[in-house]
Every structure is written in structure tokens, then in C-alpha cells.
């Protein structure tokens, strides 16, 4: 049985619903030999800022039970280097590119979008709003609905391409932030980003990470991510969602689709298996064939609510 793997995230059609998650696949070209990016539904870039950033001092990662905590600090090459060095190759390979954007001010987000708008070959933007808003006392953009609506609206003015807002699981009111992003003009919401977490070294009586806090990812957060996708989908059933958090298998992807996601992103799983995103596409196809699902799109939001 042949399975139609294609999905639509709003107006954006993808050949399959599996994308690589931001910060776990470089700029899309590091794993061409192990996981060809053109075989995925799309690639989400490492978060880009107007200028290069060095990120946090090491150590930056800690392993946990069924996951890891990272404090990379948004190290990146800057939007200009990405456009000059990586984008031409991605274009040549016909990769569906989603540019992940962050900034410490609203202007910085807009600056990244403007630079990208000069280029061909970008399919959509994803705003990482788990970044401290320097001009508003360091509170994250994604934590305060009014800020988030303003930020989204500013970005909306800068582009006509699909605009995704990536929700933080650490926001005090998830559904309120989801509504704010949509009110600001988001075409889709991706969720979730990492969960704020701490690791402590018992012998040394110190936090393991120099900045104390980091973001938890991997299978440890999957049930939380599923719950959040489900909640946002039930509150805003018309809004396309991209599910993220601990996805390691085709089955995991199916669970997110059923909860209401139109597509999924694979992050930490790629560290354990560099071919994970591609393997998940195959497993998803096999699942559908075995279950008599002719088109993956049928699974989206198809959860039977008791």
C-alpha cells in the first residue's frame, strides 16, 4: 500500500511531516551523508541573530534520565553568513528551509527577517520567543502575551512568507500566548521549546552548568509536549501546529499528529541517531501502511476524545 506522506502546515505544503528541530541539525548541511536534508519535510535552522554570537561559556550540556539539559546560549554565525554560506547549497539541494529567528529586541528579529527577505529559497520563518527581551527588563518575549502579539505583528509586517511562532513551555499561560501569537499574525505555532531545568552536582554542591539553568529536551519532555499540543489544538482548532518534544520514533510522531499537530520536528533524537529524522519518516510510512492509513494528513487531530 502506498501512503501519501504529504501534509499542509497552513499554506505550506511539505512532502512529509518530519522536520529537523532548530539547534539540533546545524544549518542543514552537516549531516548530508547520514541524513540528507532534502529527504525531510524540511529543515529548521539553528536560531539566527543579526550578528554572530559566541553563546555561553562551556560546559553547556548535561545528560539526564531520558534527556539532556543544554545551555548553548544561542551561538550562531549570524544571518548574513548563513545567507552567504549555507543557503546557496540548501537551495541547490532543494531543501525546504525554515529559518529560526531570535533577537534581544524586536528590531533584531525584524532585521533578521529583512536580510532573509533578500534571498530566494526560504520556505518559512520560525520565531524563537524564548529569548530575554532586553528592552523589557529581560522577561522572555514568549512569556507575556502583549509583548508576543506586538513582536509577531512587527515580524508579520516584514514578510509575507509563512510565519511560525515557537511557543515556550515555560510561559505562565500557554494558551494565552498561543492566542497572542495568532492575533499578531502567526500562520502556525510550533511547540514546544525546551523546559527550564537544573542539574546539581551533589559532591561539589554546585550547579553543573555555570549559568545554573538550562533547557531540558528529549523523551523526558514528550508527555508534556503532547499535553501542550493537545491543549492548544483544543483551544485553537483552526491553527496549524508543529509538534516538538522528545520524538524518537515514527510512533511518537503519530501521537503528535493525533494530538493536533500538522507536522513534527525531531531534535535531540538526532544526537543519538544522526539519521533519526529520516528513519522517523520511514517508520511513519510503515505505521500508516500497517494501519491502513492512506494519507498521513488523515491522522492530524484524529484523536478519539473519551
Amino acid at each position, binding site marked *: 500500500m502506498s501512503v501519501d506522506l504529504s501534509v499542509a502546515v497552513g499554506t505550506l505544503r511539505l512532502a512529509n511531516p518530519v522536520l529537523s528541530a532548530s*539547534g*539540533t*541539525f*546545524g544549518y542543514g548541511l*552537516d*549531516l548530508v*551523508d*547520514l541524513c540528507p536534508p532534502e529527504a525531510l519535510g524540511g529543515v529548521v535552522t*539553528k536560531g539566527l541573530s543579526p550578528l554572530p554570537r*559566541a*553563546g555561553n*561559556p*562551556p*560546559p*553547556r*550540556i548535561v*545528560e*539526564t*534520565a*531520558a*534527556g*539532556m539539559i*543544554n545551555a*548553548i546560549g544561542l*551561538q550562531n554565525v549570524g544571518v548574513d553568513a548563513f545567507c552567504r554560506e549555507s543557503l546557496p547549497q540548501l537551495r541547490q539541494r532543494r531543501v525546504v528551509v525554515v529559518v529560526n529567528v531570535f533577537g534581544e529586541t524586536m528590531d533584531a528579529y525584524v532585521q533578521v527577517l529583512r536580510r532573509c527577505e533578500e534571498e530566494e529559497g526560504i520556505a518559512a520563518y520560525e520565531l524563537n520567543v524564548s529569548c530575554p527581551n532586553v528592552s523589557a527588563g529581560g522577561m522572555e518575549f514568549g512569556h507575556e502575551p502583549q509583548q508576543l502579539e506586538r513582536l509577531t505583528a512587527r515580524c508579520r509586517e516584514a514578510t509575507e512568507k509563512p510565519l511560525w511562532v515557537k511557543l515556550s513551555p515555560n510561559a505562565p499561560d500557554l494558551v494565552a500566548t498561543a492566542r497572542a501569537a495568532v492575533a499578531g499574525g502567526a500562520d502556525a505555532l510550533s511547540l514546544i521549546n525546551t523546559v527550564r531545568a537544573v542539574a546539581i552536582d551533589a559532591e561539589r554542591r554546585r550547579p553543573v552548568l555555570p549559568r545554573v539553568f538550562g533547557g531540558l529536551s*528529549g*523523551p523526558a519532555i514528550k508527555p508534556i509536549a503532547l499535553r501542550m499540543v493537545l491543549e492548544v489544538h483544543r483551544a485553537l482548532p483552526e491553527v496549524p501546529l508543529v509538534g516538538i518534544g522528545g520524538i524518537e520514533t515514527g510512533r511518537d510522531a503519530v501521537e503528535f499528529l493525533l494530538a493536533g499537530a500538522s507536522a513534527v520536528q525531531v531534535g*535531540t533524537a*538526532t*544526537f*543519538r*541517531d*544522526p*539519521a533519526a529524522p529520516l528513519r522517523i519518516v520511514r517508520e511513519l510510512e510503515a505505521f500508516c501502511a500497517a494501519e491502513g492509513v492512506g494519507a498521513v494528513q488523515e491522522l492530524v487531530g484524529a484523536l478519539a476524545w473519551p
Partner: protein
Amino acid sequence: MIARRDMRVRLAARRELSPSCFLLELVTDTPFEAQPGQFGMLACRAGRDPFLRRPFSLAAVGARGEGTVCELLVKEVGRGSRALRELAVGGELQLLAPLGRGFDLATPEGGRLALVAGGIGLPPLLFAAERLAAAGQPFDLFLGAATAAELLLVERCQRAVGAVGGELVLATDDGSRGERGVITEALARRWASGAAYATALACGPTPMLAALTQLARSWGLELQLSLEEPMACGVGVCLGCVVDGADGRRVTTCKEGPVFRASELAARWWQ
């Protein structure tokens, strides 16, 4: 770049070398080659404990039949390395290799290579030593450890060095074998008595590398260091393994390293 593969490997043999260290002989049907200094990311056990793969330097890589035999020299320090000690011979693991940038083994005109290994820093230098021996390139090997029991594979090192008429210099902190004191002091004594090294290749604990960097600077000796940082992906996509580079950039140990020229690293490495 040598093609990397994510391979199924089978434990063909394990040899205990000291109370904490052992040698694994892994075989695979996949043909692959590597440069000394390159490493692999090994899933030490099926399932999620430990969650991430562990980086291990390739200590030897050679053809066996249609496939490859590859050796790892492991020190037991935690869950992953313990799982490797407990794995039954015949058991299978997943290995992504070869990764990263290895040593540049070219011998500069008129100079010798000095290979300097501290403790469990031996594996990449053992690989380099056997490669140099096979190519007939002269070198001396400096091997240091805390105690005689922790000097690993001495006879094998001796064979490699001997094949090209080089010297094997041993040192232990407690003087139980070889010269007493740290290995960098043994190197300094050779230098003082006129040994003309052009390049040193080194792997070992950070204090050893820092001391060596300082000596190499004062002597004008070119130095290549193999660094160890915690890693998640091993392939340059997570940015978890960075160190401070000389140019103010943060560089990935897994992709831009693990071997760096000392001049590529920020000054804090030897301060």
C-alpha cells in the same frame, strides 16, 4: 575527508589492562579507515541508559576480511564505560566513526616527532605511533601515568617505537616505573640535552596539556593537542562541545577538533 558511517560493531575481544582500563576489539562488516586522532561516538548499551553516545578515540583501525577491526582503549569512569566493561563478547553496539580532525603526522624537515601521552590519553597516540612505525617515520614516545600499573600497553608501544629506532620514555608520579615525576618534565630533560623535536602530538589530562603548551611556546615547538570535552552529537550540530578559539570564536571539539594546534586555542589553555 574519510567517509564516516554509523555501523553495527561486534565485541570480538576484551582485554583487561589495569584495574580500571581495558582494550576492546570491535569488528564490523563495514570497511572503513581513519586518521590517528579521530574518534567515534559509541552507543555503550541499547536503550536509554546512558542516554547519549560516548566519544572514544580510535586506538587502531585495520582491515579484517571484507570488514574492519577497530580497537578502543577505555577507562571505566561511569555508566557508559561500565556498560562496556560488562558487555559480553559477541555483543553488538552502534559506532559512528570516524569523526573529527586527527593529527597531522607530516614530519617537518630536519626534525623529529615527539608523541606525548598522559594516562588514558594514550589511545590516539598509540594509533599515531603504529601508523608512523608502519610508514618508517621516526618518533619518540613519552608515556606518563600516576603509577606503574596505569602505564598501559608498554610492550606494544615499545615495538612501535623500536621499529623506527626511536625512544620510549616512561614516567610515573610515584616513580614506580620509569622516571619519577610528570611526563612533561621528562620531555623537558630530553629537550635540555639537545633533542631536536619539531612537532609534538599530545593527549592527556588538561594540566599536562597546559604545561606542555607553555613549554612548547618557550621552545618554539609546534604542538598539536587532542582535547576531550563532553559531547552530545559528535558531529557539529549541537554546539555542546565548544572551547575558546584563539580568534575569539568558540570552536567545536568534535568537528573542528578534537586535535587542535596550540596556536588555534585561546590563551587560557596554558595560563
